[in-house]
């Protein structure tokens, strides 16, 4: 579990952990039933107060993203987190904002950006369509 903390941006450390674990889960880098590091281990690796890690884990448990099994560690929840969709949208919103900021600076109208997204999406989807076509041909 790769977490990068910064004390320059003012965001409380436990919140940085919470949002980065959410990101790792939402982006599929942490999968259901993956084990997350024990509190002490993560605290020592990140050089932070173990209580801060404990607090972040508690919050992630309350949000349904992690579950702790008594005496055997903490895991990514199996049930699929209820927040995952909202989180995914939140992450996308940040990306879209950055994209829009750049397109404005480069003076590319938003319709062009949308058209570009659609055409890129078609391109990225093609191999999969081919696979599907191949599968159809086989069956």
């Amino acid at each position, binding site marked *: 579990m790769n977490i990068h*903390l910064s*004390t*320059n*941006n*003012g*965001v*409380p*450390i436990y919140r940085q952990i919470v949002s980065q674990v959410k990101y790792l889960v939402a982006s599929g880098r942490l999968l259901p039933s993956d084990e997350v590091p024990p*509190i*002490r281990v993560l*605290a*020592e690796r*990140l*050089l*932070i*107060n*173990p*209580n*801060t890690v404990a607090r972040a884990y508690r919050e992630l448990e309350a949000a349904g993203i992690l579950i702790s099994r008594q005496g055997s560690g903490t895991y990514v929840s199996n049930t699929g987190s209820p927040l995952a969709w909202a989180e995914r949208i939140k992450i996308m919103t940040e990306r879209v904002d950055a994209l829009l900021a750049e397109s404005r600076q480069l003076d590319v109208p938003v319709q062009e950006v949308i058209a570009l997204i659609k055409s890129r999406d078609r391109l990225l989807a093609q191999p999969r369509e081919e696979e599907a076509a191949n599968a159809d041909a086989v069956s």
Partner: protein
Amino acid sequence: MQMPSHSADELPILVTHLTQFYGRATALSDLSLQVPRGAVFGLVGENGAGKTTLIKLMLGLLVPNAGSVTMFGMDPIQHPERVLGRLGYLSEDHDLPHWMRVNELIRYNRSFYPNWDDAYAEELRQQFGLDEKAKVKNLSRGQCALAGLLIALAHKPELLVLDEPSSGLDAIARRDILAAIVRTVADEGRTVFFSSHLLDEVERVADTVAMLNKGKLVLCAGMDEIKAQHHTLTLHFPEPVTGPLKIAGALSIEGRGKEWTVVCNGEMAAVRASAESLGASIVEESTPSLEDIFIARAGRRSLKV
């Protein structure tokens, strides 16, 4: 040997209206604070702010000019052995006898502490990578700090007092020391009091912070509380303005031309009103880092060693 536990609910550290002079200079001025059991308490301030003076008073090495310090409910001057037996102390300059070898240093110090734990001392020695045959004078600064920390920890004290534990150390030694502190904190019920001018370090490890500036306590609160109360606002003016700006409720104001940055303490409404009356709009709001807050409070640009 166990001390009678009648003082189990006593605060590890209680400082009340403490004032200390060195000649005519005031080192500490009417300082009051308390450190609850289990806290990781960070004392921050520039060199000369009074951090080491406060620690010396806590250890009973100085007699207060006014006010009082009680440790576990006891006066450290009247009951030095009872107070010092319950705490581990790492001094700023890690002063250890140069002519001793590491194993001699350990044997020498164990004789002061009835609760010394040989197995734990050995575990720490290996963890810190200290050669038992090495002479103290041949240890690096980082190894000296670790040896000092070993001595402070091996009697499993309830309270660990660290004066600038990582000052003057290279990045790797700092990491070792911080990791050792983090490991110590994880031990149940242990209270840690450490002073530092490295605010990044304090922000990572401490749950409560006291800021000293020229002997005065300028802020003392939980880290969460401090973060929740302080805000950084970026103001944008339609036309460049020349300072100094006057904004009600601001702790500090910085900037030039059209963009100005204000750090404030829970006075968002006042700052907003004041900024708007000057014709500025607030274009960004964020939480300042501990360093930003300290600088805003101390009215100083940089924290120098």
